């Protein structure tokens, strides 16, 4: 799986899920309708998105996605066209939500992220766990091998469903 496209750099730490999608939009029954509200709670968010309307890769600061567990944050990013987020670190729940929605969470050291924020386009080979900025050197990263398979394969819920009998057997023997 190759993710290739323009980047949007938002070089701020601690962008929480309230900034990615404010709670007033958490009123739908399914995951739809989130993209138009992406970064509505981020100061200057609309202007940043407008500056790179076709961006596919978000390059941002540490602790991205902290705060609320709302999966709506991952849905908003995906529906706005993002396929990967590159940051020094992610909040746990956001990182899980990203994997469960095909949004590739890539952790790299701050200095590497800083350099990538100055680039224009990046090509990511998800299976090979490498990325390369246009005219730049290849950089390796590491994904969670199981959750990477959720992105490349059948997804989280089918995996859980495949474990149902094992879980029932475990509980019966508990």
């Amino acid at each position, binding site marked *: 799986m190759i993710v290739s496209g323009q980047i949007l750099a938002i070089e701020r730490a601690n962008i929480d899920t309230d900034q990615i999608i404010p709670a007033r939009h958490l009123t*739908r029954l399914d995951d739809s309708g989130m993209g138009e509200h992406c970064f509505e709670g981020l100061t200057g968010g609309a202007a940043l998105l407008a500056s790179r309307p076709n961006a596919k890769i978000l390059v941002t600061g540490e602790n991205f996605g902290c705060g609320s567990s709302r999966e709506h944050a991952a849905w908003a990013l995906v529906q706005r066209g993002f396929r990967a987020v590159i940051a020094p670190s992610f909040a746990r729940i956001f990182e*899980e939500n990203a994997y*469960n929605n095909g949004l590739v969470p890539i952790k790299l050291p701050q200095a590497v992220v800083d350099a990538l924020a100055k680039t224009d386009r990046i090509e990511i080979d998800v299976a090979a766990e490498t990325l390369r900025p246009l005219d730049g050197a290849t950089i390796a990263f590491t994904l969670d091998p199981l959750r990477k398979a959720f992105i490349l394969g059948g997804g*989280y819920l089918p995996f859980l469903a495949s474990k149902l009998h094992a879980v029932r057997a475990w509980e019966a023997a508990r």
Partner: protein
Amino acid sequence: MAQRSLFAKLWDAHVVEELPGGNALVFMDLVVAHEITTPPGALAIEKQFDDKLYDPKRIVAMIDHVAPAKDGATALQAQTVRVWAKRHGIAFHDIGDNGICHVIVPERGYVAPGMTVCCGDSHTCTLGAFGTFSLGIGSTAQAGAMLAGCLVLQRPKVMRVNVTGRLGNGATAKDLALTVIATIGFRGGTGHVLEYTGEAIEALTMEQRMTLCNMAIEAGATTGLIAADATTAAYLAQTPLAPAGWRAERADPDATYDAEVTIDASRIRPMVSWGTNPGECAPVDGVVPHDAPAASLAYMDLRPGQVLAEVAMDQAFIGSCTNARISDLRAAAEVFRGRRVSIPTIVTPGSQAVRRQAEREGLHDIFQDAGALWTHSSCGPCLGMSMGVLAPGMRCISSSNRNFPGRMGDGGRVHLAAPAVVAASAILGRIASPAELTREAVLA
């Protein structure tokens, strides 16, 4: 066997299967489901998996965030959970019997030490106060737990937070929670469970322990955790469900931890946040730090060195899953008694059961005599959804848990504090400690 932490014992007892990459399939004894984050997963199971749940008896559902519904969309969310719960025979708390899930689940006795609990809500860490491994997750992960009884989790590391001495000087569990976050950092707990130990923790009531564990997520931690003891047993015995048969696990005496931090409770004073995350806080009688980040101060319209007691408020809010239990309302009422608020003030109990108890004790009269609005239970303005949302530039002192930009309403500014500090600030119209009011009374 190696000496194990309490968390390690809970984890080991629930691992169904080890998975690649340090992951495990971890059994969930209880799934808590509310109207905001449950419908997407419930509908996905209905469409893709024949509506089959692993075990409806391991689910408890309630109307929690917006009670009653504020518009058609939130009514549809509530109705979806209502119909779904009834169809599956899931225990359900509708409006009238509602409350914030992190208040209802313990007060009714759904939780017992040794359990694992998950919910599509980040403050599920609250239940760690009962010696449970309880954590917030996304809607898809919650759906997985409802479908197959498990979560896929990376095994977290364990940070021991040893709190020595005793809380004094008017400091509360909220002030301890803010101090922990300020000490280890807003993201200092990421990838870790915070296992709280020490004399100060053992001395806390269950409601205080819940306040402390509630804010573990605000340090990025997977959850907070406190070993069950006689205090836990006494609390659970008086709940309607009165869970029995549980065994209190403790960490082994020589358990090893991935990280350790020690905090002296006796040095903690009442705190208030000045910035845009809960770790950006200082003593109420202090100043905005000189090294405070410019971005935080720009959003909050404060300057380095500014005296916090001079910062004027536009609104006060006592509520949320952090500080809206009966002891929180009692602490606020003690400050309000015989006084008047000088700014709009909202008091929102954490559950309808808390509301009824407060009314039995006459606390609602104290709040209303003081000029505060006494509401039914809801998450309310804590997350900017209803019942007291801020306008841009408005400043609110709040007993809730998040002071993120826009959290309580676009452009709104939030200062976090304990209920008594919120009450004192509501009376004086600025950041204030209850001690100031006591001094005034003595001088008068």
